């Protein structure tokens, strides 16, 4: 059991952060707090993906030796570099996260303009539900 925890501690932290975000998204009354929870939730998933990409003894996935013409002859071994695919996926996911935040904040500003509050129960009271 200890061995499982020690050898995968990154994944355990990912689970913990994910649960923090999920809990905050579902139980917080303030809409901005929900949004903060949402950000933590998304970054936890990004942490998970980057942890997949990590490789013991791997270096940054940039091949030294300049670029442009004439570099095609370099011989590269995959074990020396970390896995680049999760990084690519997560660049997309970060941008998706920022876009979500942007739209949600725009909606929050409009909610505040119409209801004068960001507390969910007060808004519900105003709507008469």
């Amino acid at each position, binding site marked *: 059991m200890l061995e499982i925890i020690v050898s995968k501690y990154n994944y*355990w932290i990912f689970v913990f952060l994910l649960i923090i975000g999920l809990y905050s998204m579902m139980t917080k009354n303030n809409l901005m707090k929900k949004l903060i929870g949402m950000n933590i939730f998304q970054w936890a998933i990004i942490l998970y993906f980057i942890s997949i990409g990590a*490789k013991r*003894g791997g270096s940054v996935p940039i091949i030294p030796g*300049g670029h442009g013409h004439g570099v095609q002859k370099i011989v590269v071994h995959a074990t020396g570099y970390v896995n680049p695919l999760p990084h690519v996926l997560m660049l997309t996911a970060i941008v998706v996260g920022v876009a979500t935040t942007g739209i949600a904040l725009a909606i929050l500003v409009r909610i505040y303009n119409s209801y004068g509050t960001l507390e969910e129960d007060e808004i519900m009271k105003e709507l008469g539900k």
Partner: protein
Amino acid sequence: MTRKFVGILIAVIALIALMQGLKDLPKWADPNQPASIHVSPRYIEKGIEETGVPNIVTAVLADYRGYDTLFETAVIFTAGVAVMMLLRRSKR
């Protein structure tokens, strides 16, 4: 109060489920895990030969999976247009 309870319940269920799932994962940073040996070696070994770009992340981002990046930019565009539509008010 019930909402708090339901939230905690769902969080705990997710926690237990994820913990079960984590047990069978390969060890962290294992060079021989399937994710590191199936698709990605081709990017590292052939990337510079096929695209001429030393930064493999850029090569994969813009070329091998360039279609993802097109839609990633479209996501940003969507967000921008959405915020413009939701908030912007012109002169009357």
